[in-house]
C-alpha cells in the first residue's frame, strides 16, 4: 500500500515519543511557564481539577495558585482581565471551556483585544491566548457542540489557530504564547485522546504555514482540526480505489497559508474543502472564494465543500453524527469533483 509512505510519518512513528493531544498541550504550557514568568493561566476548574479535558493537570502543583488561577463563572470579565493583564506586561492563557461560551466574551475579544493595538496607534500590545474547544462530541447537544471559528476568522486583529495533531498542538501553542497579538486557540473535544509523536525539545511552529498531512496528485483536500484525521481516513480508502489525495491542513486559519493551498490546487486541479461547521458563512466558503479567484484557470470542476448540516447540533447521537461530515461524505465529495 502506498498510503503509509504518503501520510506524514513523523507523527505516527512509534519508535519516537508519543503523547496525547492533551498531554502535548500540557507540555507546551509547562515549558512556556518555566521559560517566562509572565505566562499565567486562568479559567474555570483549571487549577485544582486540572481542567475538564485535563490539559492543565499538575500545573497548579508546579506553578502555584498565583499563576494557575481558578475563576468564578464570569467569562466576560475574566477574559477582559486577561486583556488587561496582557496590555500591562503579562502573557495570560485564558481557558474558555467550550467555544459556545466564548459568545459571552466577544465584547472583550472582538471590541477590546482585537482592536487595542490598532486603537492605540500600534502602541499597545495584547499577548493574550484564548484557549477554547469546539466541535461535536458525545451527545453534548446544541450549546456545547458548536464550531464557531468563522466568527473569529472574520475579525481583523485576531489570530485563529486550530491544531489537528499532538505535534501541531504543542508547537502552535508555544508560538501562540510568544505572539504579541491576541490568539484564539481552538482545540477539538474529540482530539484530546489522539496520540502522536511529540518531540521533547523546545520547538515552535510558525503561524501561516500549512502542513501537507498527505501528499497526492489527484485532488486537494483542505481540512483542519478534527476534519484532518477524517480526511486522512478518507484518503486511505480512496487510495485503495486508485485515487491519490493530497491533504492540506492550514493549521492556522488566520494567518492563512494561501500559497501552499494554491500550489496544491494548481497541481491537482480539483478541490474539496472539509469543515465541521455549517456551510453557510463558514471558513470553507472563504477559502473556496480565494481559490476560485486566484486559481480560476486551473479548476477542472467546481470546488466542493463538505460541511455540517445547517442546524444546531442535536442531542440524539445518530442525528448528531449525521449532522457533521463523516469519512464517507468526504469520499463521495472527492468522487464528485473528479
Amino acid at each position: 500500500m502506498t498510503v503509509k509512505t504518503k501520510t506524514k510519518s513523523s507523527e505516527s512513528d512509534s519508535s519516537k515519543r508519543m503523547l496525547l493531544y492533551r498531554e502535548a498541550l500540557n507540555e507546551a504550557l509547562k515549558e512556556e511557564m518555566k521559560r517566562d514568568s509572565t505566562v499565567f493561566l486562568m479559567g474555570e476548574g483549571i487549577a485544582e481539577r486540572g481542567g475538564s479535558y485535563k490539559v492543565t493537570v499538575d500545573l497548579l502543583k508546579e506553578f502555584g495558585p498565583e499563576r494557575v488561577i481558578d475563576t468564578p463563572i464570569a467569562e466576560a470579565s475574566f477574559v477582559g482581565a486577561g486583556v488587561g493583564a496582557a496590555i500591562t506586561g503579562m502573557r495570560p492563557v485564558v481557558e474558555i471551556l467550550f467555544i459556545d461560551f466564548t459568545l459571552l466574551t466577544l465584547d472583550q475579544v472582538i471590541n477590546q483585544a482585537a482592536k487595542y493595538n490598532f486603537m492605540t496607534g500600534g502602541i499597545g500590545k495584547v499577548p493574550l491566548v484564548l484557549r477554547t474547544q469546539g466541535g461535536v462530541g458525545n451527545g453534548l447537544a446544541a450549546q456545547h457542540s458548536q464550531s464557531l471559528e468563522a466568527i473569529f476568522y472574520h475579525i481583523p486583529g485576531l489570530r485563529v489557530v486550530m491544531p489537528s495533531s499532538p505535534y501541531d498542538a504543542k508547537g502552535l501553542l508555544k508560538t501562540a504564547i510568544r505572539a504579541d497579538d491576541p490568539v484564539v486557540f481552538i482545540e477539538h473535544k474529540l482530539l484530546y485522546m489522539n496520540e502522536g509523536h511529540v518531540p521533547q525539545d523546545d520547538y515552535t511552529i510558525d503561524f501561516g504555514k500549512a502542513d501537507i498531512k498527505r501528499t497526492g496528485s489527484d485532488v486537494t483536500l483542505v481540512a483542519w482540526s478534527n476534519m484532518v484525521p477524517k480526511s486522512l481516513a478518507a484518503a486511505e480508502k480512496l487510495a485503495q480505489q486508485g485515487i491519490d489525495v493530497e491533504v492540506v491542513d492550514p493549521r492556522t486559519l488566520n494567518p492563512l497559508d494561501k500559497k501552499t493551498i494554491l500550489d496544491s490546487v494548481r497541481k491537482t486541479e480539483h478541490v474539496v474543502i472539509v469543515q465541521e461547521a455549517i456551510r453557510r458563512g463558514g471558513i470553507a466558503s472563504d477559502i473556496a472564494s480565494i481559490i476560485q479567484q486566484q486559481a480560476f484557470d486551473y479548476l477542472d470542476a467546481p470546488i466542493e465543500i463538505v460541511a455540517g448540516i445547517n442546524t444546531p447540533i442535536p442531542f440524539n447521537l445518530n442525528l448528531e453524527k449525521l449532522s457533521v461530515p463523516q469519512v464517507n461524505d468526504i469520499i463521495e465529495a472527492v468522487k464528485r469533483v473528479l
Partner: protein
Amino acid sequence: MYEKDFLKQLFHKIYTIRIFETECIKLYRQGLIRGYFHPYVGEEATAVGVCSALAEDDYIISTHRGHGHCIARGAQIDRMVAELLGKKTGYCSGLGGSMHIADVQAGNLGANGIVGGGIPIGVGAALGISIRKEKKVVAIFFSDGAANNGVFAESLNLAAIWNLPAIFLLENNHYAVSTPIEQSSRNQNLYERATGYGVHALAVDGNNVIEVFEQTKDARQMCIKGKGPVLIEAKTYRHGGHHVNDPGAYMPKDRLDYFKSKDPVTIAKKHLKEQGKMSESEIEKIEKEVETTMERAIDFAKESPELSFAEFNQMVMGY
C-alpha cells in the same frame, strides 16, 4: 399545620425526583444516556417547595441541573426519560437532552446549558406578564455559580426597576462544579447581593420543603401585588459530584454527611408522619407507586422510536 394530602403530594414529588435521578443514573452507567447529566439529588425540596407555591399558569425557568424542576412543575416522567434517551417521544423529540429539557406547555421554559443563561429569559417572561397585566409570576432557578455571572446582576436590576413578578430562586448548593463558594464570593450570604440593588431578599433552608414553600408563597404574593421581584436563597447541597462522572472527591466528608443528615426525602417523610399522621406502610405504598411509575417510564422510553433523519431534516430545513 398542613393537610395530609398536601404533604403527601410534596413527598410524592420529592421522592419521584429522587427515584428519577437514581434510576436514570443507572441508565447512564449502562450507556443508555449520554452527554452531560447533572443530578438534583439532595436538592429536591427546593424545586418542590417552590413549584408547589406556584399557580398553574405561572412560569418557571430551569438550569443544567433541571430534572427536579421539570418534575416539580408537573412533567410526565416517561417523556422525560424518553428525552434523556434521545427519543422522539421525549419532551424535545430527543433533540435537547438533559441540559435542554423543557416542558413549554406546562410553563417550564426549559433547562439551559449556559450557566445563568436562563436568568434574563425568566425576566423577559415576567416582563410579558407585566405588560399584559396578568396575575402571574415567574420562578427563575439558578445556582451560586450563576450568581457570579453578569446577567444575574443585570437581570436583578431590570426586574427591580420594572417591579417585575419574578422570584429569583438562588439554589445555593455551595459548589460550581468543584469550586466552593468560599472561593468565588467573599460574602457567602449571596442573597445580600440583592439588597444593594434594593431588592427584597432572604435565605431559607433549601432542604426543608415546607420552609421553601412558605417563603415562595409570600414572595409570590409580593410579586402579584406589584412589589416584586424577590430573591430567595435556598441553602442546600449536592449529594454527589457535579455530574454523573464526577466522584466529587473534593467535597469534605463531614459537610456532605451533615447535609445528608438533612436529606430532603427524610425531612419530607417526617412531615408526613408527624403532621400528616401517616403510617410507615402508607408511605411505603407511595414509594412503591413512584417506583412502579418509574419502571414504566423507562420501558416507555426504551421502546420509543428515535426521530428519523428525514423528520429531522424536515424540521431544520428552514434554519
